[in-house]
């Protein structure tokens, strides 16, 4: 029995039996959740590099005061596109890639519920990306309205703005389909005995994220559609001269936008909650609390959106409401941090690369959470809104939060995906270079913001020069460090050391990767093999370890 489940050659034979198209058609027509997961992950890495090049151009321009490298108009296009590419092209698809790879394995499902729709959700993304990147070539260039696309600026831009609107529509459709797929898979396709409250936490965080996506992506689509009709079809939703209100745009956008930031962090919480217990050799402290905290974060994330709008002239009562609500939402977030720390407490910890990134995540994400609280205090935010302080805040939560979790998860599951161990030395180098350069880049931005440097400007007053120079040096260091990541991943994909037998931590008694395709009918064998796959990718105590076949 175990030889059938383990033998990698058998897995290959199985593939050949199934008559899959080969070469590029394999990837275009694939309905296999692992193939699609890999596609998502590679897509997001390419977009990460594209967004990174834009960021480095921005930082190069800001190295010194004055205008040296790009025109101000192009600079504004770069900040806009950097934000959009990173949010919709890099972070979100990466998490969907993790979901595709891991969720069916973790819950023992043969594949995603809607395998063809899964293919469609992925292949919409390159189309959207081409529209997005192509808008740089449109007359007037790409949109320069900022990633938030505030009216009235976004009503005035050229054709690049229309391309962007359609790209957002397409990416939204892709996200909604992906979310429906994940919800259906988790609710309907769990292996017998896998109750909801036994699921690995990553599945829980994605289940809740998927509901958030279904709830708010249509709101974003509505917002950009209103922009489109204002631009071309004579409506005046956001045009005061026609009886509309530009602030309405901000309300609609942030009603999407704040849940969106949780869409980008909850799966990261899930990944970290898988990794911390493994490398602490203890079960996750407070599993149920984590599930409850995630759900309440999701609910509360809908009632805080106007903390992005404190300077739009709200009545004092509104300011107080959103300030109190925002500060209360930090409670369940704090509970999560305490749970991770309690999990590590007195554990026999080791610090392999995934754990380094996970611990780095906790440390640096917490700093981002605290600056968020500071931004939430209305009188302070009125001072620092639209300064580099906010830029520092959201890079602490997004880069050191979401992105570090993506790195952690990649190193953690790469051996499972490829059957090979990644190079531990490269991984550690990547971690230390990333966390050091990250802080060199973004920590000085707190000082810049407190001193009053506005965001989204190509030039600045002389007193900001030193911290900007430091930030630019750090940014180039950070950007180059990501090539280490690429090298580590390529080396692992191409071969190298076999997956190790880390007894006592992760069960690795199967020598190859999970077979590409498992039987569709849940047989006893399938249940065993998916359990093994799940065990090797998840914490060891959650399964019946003693009775698992050798």
């Amino acid at each position: 029995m175990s030889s059938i489940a383990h033998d990698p050659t058998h897995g290959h034979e199985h593939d050949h039996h199934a008559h899959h198209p080969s070469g590029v058609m394999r990837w275009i027509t694939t309905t296999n959740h692992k193939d699609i997961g890999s596609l998502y992950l590679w897509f997001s890495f390419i977009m990460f590099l594209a967004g990174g090049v834009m960021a480095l151009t921005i930082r190069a321009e800001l190295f010194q005061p004055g205008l040296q490298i790009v025109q101000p108009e192009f600079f504004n296009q770069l900040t806009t596109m950097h934000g959009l590419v990173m949010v919709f092209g890099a972070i979100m698809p990466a998490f969907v890639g993790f979901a595709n790879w891991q969720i069916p394995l973790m819950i023992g499902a043969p594949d995603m519920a809607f395998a063809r729709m899964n293919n469609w959700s992925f292949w919409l993304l390159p189309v959207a990306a081409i529209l997005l990147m192509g808008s740089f070539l449109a007359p007037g260039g790409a949109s320069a309205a900022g990633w938030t696309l505030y009216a009235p600026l976004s009503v005035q831009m050229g054709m690049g703005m229309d391309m962007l609107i359609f790209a957002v529509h397409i990416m939204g459709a892709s996200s909604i389909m992906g979310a429906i797929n994940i919800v259906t898979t988790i609710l309907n396709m769990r292996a017998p005995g896998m109750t909801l409250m036994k699921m690995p936490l990553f599945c829980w965080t994605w289940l809740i994220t998927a509901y958030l996506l279904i709830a708010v992506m249509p709101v974003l689509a509505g917002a950009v559609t209103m922009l489109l009709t204002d631009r071309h079809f004579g409506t005046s939703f956001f045009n005061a001269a026609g009886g509309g209100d530009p602030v309405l745009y901000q309300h609609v956008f942030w009603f999407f936008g704040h849940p969106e930031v949780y869409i980008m962090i909850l799966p990261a919480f899930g990944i970290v909650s898988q990794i911390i217990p493994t490398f602490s050799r203890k079960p996750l402290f407070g599993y149920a609390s984590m599930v409850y905290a995630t759900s309440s974060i999701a609910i509360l994330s809908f009632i805080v959106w106007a903390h992005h709008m404190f300077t739009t002239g709200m009545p004092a009562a509104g300011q107080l409401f959103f300030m109190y609500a925002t500060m209360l939402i930090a409670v369940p977030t704090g509970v999560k941090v305490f749970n991770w720390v309690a999990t590590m407490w007195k554990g026999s910890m080791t610090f392999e690369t995934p754990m380094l990134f996970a611990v780095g995540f906790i440390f640096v994400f917490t700093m981002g959470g605290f600056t968020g609280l500071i931004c939430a205090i209305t009188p302070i935010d009125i001072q620092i809104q639209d300064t580099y302080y906010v830029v520092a805040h959201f890079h602490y939560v997004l880069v050191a939060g979401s992105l570090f979790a993506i790195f952690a998860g990649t190193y953690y599951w790469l051996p499972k995906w490829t059957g090979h161990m990644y190079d531990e030395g490269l991984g550690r180098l990547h971690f230390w270079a990333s966390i050091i350069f990250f802080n060199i880049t973004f920590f000085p931005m707190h000082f810049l913001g407190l001193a009053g440097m506005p965001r989204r400007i190509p030039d600045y007053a002389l007193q900001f020069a030193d911290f900007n120079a430091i930030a630019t040096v750090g940014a180039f260091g950070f950007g180059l460090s990501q090539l280490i990541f690429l090298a580590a991943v390529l080396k692992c994909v191409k071969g190298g050391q076999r997956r190790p037998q880390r007894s006592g931590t992760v069960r690795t008694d199967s020598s190859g990767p999970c077979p590409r395709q498992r039987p569709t009918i849940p047989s006893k064998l399938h249940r065993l093999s998916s359990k093994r796959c799940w065990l090797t990718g998840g914490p060891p105590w959650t399964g019946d370890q003693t009775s698992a076949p050798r």
Partner: protein
Amino acid sequence: MSDGDDTPQRAGFLSTVRAVLWSFAGVRKRRDYNQDASSLNPVHVIIAGIFAAVVFVLSIVLVVRFVVSQ
């Protein structure tokens, strides 16, 4: 938080609301959680969750009105 209730089969209105309220703080004792897991009805939990969110919003509104009226 220990209640003397020894019959875990059917959760009443109050225990559903209590579980939801604890979830807003993000904490739950293991024993209480085990009781939840065996007795709570998911549909009731969702209804209680929406209800609690409305109550939460209204109570912040009350606090705000109290503060601005000073």
